[in-house]
């Protein structure tokens, strides 16, 4: 029966090509714009580290002195060096690392100075974020304590400096100091770069990683948000009243997470009792997805575009409903004949829906092409996420599901009206 309906639908659609083309175009435009914006949303709101995102926690706290504390202020994202070092010393989590972004200049094989993005962090960074190593391995916790002159470099930088060969044991010249390379990263890029959203949210991983203690020792320049509560000759000094360090902890079980929460509350309470401030203070830990949500990684522009596109799809669907209605009712005579010859209302209804579905599928195919075009446009936009926008299998399937569902939805009302055509009246008026 389905085959017969399909045949009827195709015949009917061929009969009025302009109207068919209008309907297909309307659905395609709606699907194309919706899928373009939904794909951007899908990529931007994706989980950068799905295997661990529920076990990784960003720790942030408000320990501002009383004269800088205002009720209702946002919780600062970063910690002071004093607090970060205290938490690291206690080491209550399965893995933990304080970190900061920075930049340094290294000299390439051709003798040209290269400015590279760096990350100053602890040995736990690598196991915590499942960072793959191509050569060698990460530095050890002892190296953090010893402020060892060691570094891990990215595969890219290894390519540029050493032609991609195993460079473990070689040295990196940085401002008159040399760092011994202990490891080379495999392919690793977190998009969005959830562990530090303040220095470009999308892009490749940093090119050089070295112990935070070493960077502080060498007074390497840091970049990123820095807020101080008072003037400090050196904002990176151990007791400087400045918040600038990002802190991540890995807590493998919910029980550990609960225990860690308690530990943070105790820590804050102790700080308050110690006279650092008189307000209650605040400490919290957010898992990766909560953190991304809190930081609004999906730009409001993109959300807005998505709503606009869905509104547009709505208009296209209303349009299709109107055109399908016109099309089906125009065939009242034909439907009357079929009904008179014994076709049930159900049969008429199904036949009309099959026709709507065919329009929807055609609209889906064309819409997919339009979405691909839209994504090309998005990739040419001047945003840092542009390069990472692509359609995956799930979005491809969603396109067809959306096209089919929306065209069937659009076909429901016209099909309902068509099946209620009274055969006698339809035949007589012809």
């Amino acid at each position, binding site marked *: 029966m389905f085959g017969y309906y399909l045949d009827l639908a195709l015949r009917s659609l061929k009969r009025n090509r302009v109207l068919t083309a209008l309907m297909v175009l309307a659905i395609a435009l709606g699907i194309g714009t919706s899928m373009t914006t939904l794909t951007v949303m899908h990529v931007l709101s994706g989980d950068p580290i799905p295997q661990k995102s529920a076990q990784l926690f960003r720790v942030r706290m408000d320990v501002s002195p009383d004269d800088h504390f205002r009720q209702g202020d946002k919780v600062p994202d970063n910690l002071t060096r004093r607090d970060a070092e205290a938490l690291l010393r206690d080491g209550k989590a399965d893995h933990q690392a304080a970190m900061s972004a920075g930049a340094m200049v290294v000299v390439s094989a051709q003798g040209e100075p290269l400015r590279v993005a760096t990350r100053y962090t602890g040995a736990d960074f690598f196991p915590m974020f499942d960072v793959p190593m191509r050569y060698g391995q990460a530095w050890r916790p002892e190296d953090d304590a010893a402020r060892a002159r060691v570094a891990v470099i990215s595969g890219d930088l290894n390519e540029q400096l050493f032609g991609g060969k195993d460079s473990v044991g070689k040295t990196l010249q940085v401002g008159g100091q040399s760092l011994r390379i202990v490891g080379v990263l495999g392919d690793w890029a977190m998009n969005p770069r959830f562990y530090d959203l303040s220095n470009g949210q999308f892009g490749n991983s940093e090119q050089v990683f070295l112990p935070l203690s070493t960077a502080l020792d060498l007074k390497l320049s840091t970049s990123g948000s820095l807020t101080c509560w008072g003037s400090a*000759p050196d904002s990176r000094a151990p007791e400087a009243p400045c918040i600038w360090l990002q802190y991540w902890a890995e807590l493998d079980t919910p029980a550990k997470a609960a225990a860690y929460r308690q530990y943070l509350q105790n820590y804050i309470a102790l700080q308050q009792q110690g006279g650092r401030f008189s307000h209650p203070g605040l400490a919290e830990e957010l898992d990766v997805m909560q953190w991304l949500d809190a930081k609004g990684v999906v730009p409001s522009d993109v959300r807005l575009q998505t709503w606009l596109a869905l509104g547009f799809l709505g208009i296209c669907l209303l349009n299709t409903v109107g055109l399908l209605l016109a099309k089906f009712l125009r065939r009242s005579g034909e439907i009357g004949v079929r009904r008179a010859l014994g076709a049930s209302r159900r049969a008429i209804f199904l036949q009309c829906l099959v026709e709507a579905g065919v329009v929807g599928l055609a609209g889906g195919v064309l819409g997919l092409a339009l979405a691909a075009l839209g994504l090309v446009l998005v990739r040419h936009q001047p945003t840092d996420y542009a390069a990472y926008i692509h359609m995956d299998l799930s979005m491809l399937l969603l396109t067809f599901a959306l096209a089919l569902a929306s065209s069937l939805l659009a076909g429901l009302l016209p099909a309902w009206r068509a099946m209620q055509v009274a055969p006698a009246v339809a035949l007589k008026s012809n």
Partner: protein
Amino acid sequence: MQIKPVLVALKKHRLATLLIALEIALACAVLCNAVFMIASRLSAMQLVSGVDESSLGFIQLGGFDPKSAHDLNARVVAGLGAIPGVQAVRVINSVPFGPAAGAFGVTLDQAGKQFRGVPELYLGAPGTPEALGLKLVAGRMPGAEDYQTVLEGYLPANSNVLVTRVFAEHLWPGEDALGKTFWTGRNQFRVIGVVAQLSVQQYDEEGERGAQWTVFVPVQPGPQLAGTYLVRADPRELDRVMVDARTALAKIAPDAVVDHQQSDTLPALRTRFFQADRALTGMLVGVIVSLLGVTALGIVGLASFWVAQRRKQIGIRRAIGATRGDILRYFQTENFLIVTFGIALGMLLAFVLNALLMKFYELPHLPLYYLPLGAIALWVLGQLAVLGPALRAARVPPVVATRTA
């Protein structure tokens, strides 16, 4: 033209009428809000920087040894100053549309109780306000004695500063700002001059900082202020000067790396800063065009269907004396009524949509005059779309009435 017969006829096609009206309503709501967003993007892009943008360029160096800051500054200022066409080179921490260089929370009292927001600070060497082209509206420009050497930290303990008119009004509403003081931490600022405008480096509409919340602090260059330079040249020569400057820097400062992304002319930095806004505007225009297109196609489709369906009725009307104009006007009136109905519904929707957008995206209130404008646009669209089918209807010959079926 009588409206009553049209209304009676429309009652027979309630469903189709309702569909078109709904489509118009949605289109009206989206159209008003999209146009409004375009207008607010465009006005955001008009941000006045308060400096002579077309004459200015910015250079940022990195990777040098902070200990050699004095020497580097001297070499760069002298070296770039020697490039033909360069009118001035000044050490400055950043420029409007340049990298974010220093935001400081300020208070009106030393104890730090009366917090008044987080303005951005511009730090510049002698001659910087003049090179920027700042317009003084009260007080005086910093003199040679106001440019202090910073011994510790980032700022002098006491500085004589310039503030913008907007920020002065924010700190001391309705009062004369000259001679007044404010603080950031233990550093005191005394206002010696008020400038018309000087915009922040990276203005964020969603942030708490106003676009003109800036303070100019005169300082001597040193380790705390090095590697970032303002270059002034004739607007016609600026592009060439900046290219020359970048080449020259390889010789002047081989120990530093030029940050090519940040080192550019101010017009180029401005263009880059508003790129996302332009992209959004383009996308909104695209949505509006397709939206109107689809709506027009819907009207054409349905009107054609009605014309075909009523061929016989039209023939009869023509046979009993209706002119072609009567038929044409019938379909035009019909369309006008449907679109009006849709617009009425659409205005309600537009306000609901705007209320939602205001809630979730902190968009301002939709000004009322957008609604009649949207209405006129849709009326025109409707009339244009129905013209084709209506003309076809007007061409139906009276003889059709005599034929069966």
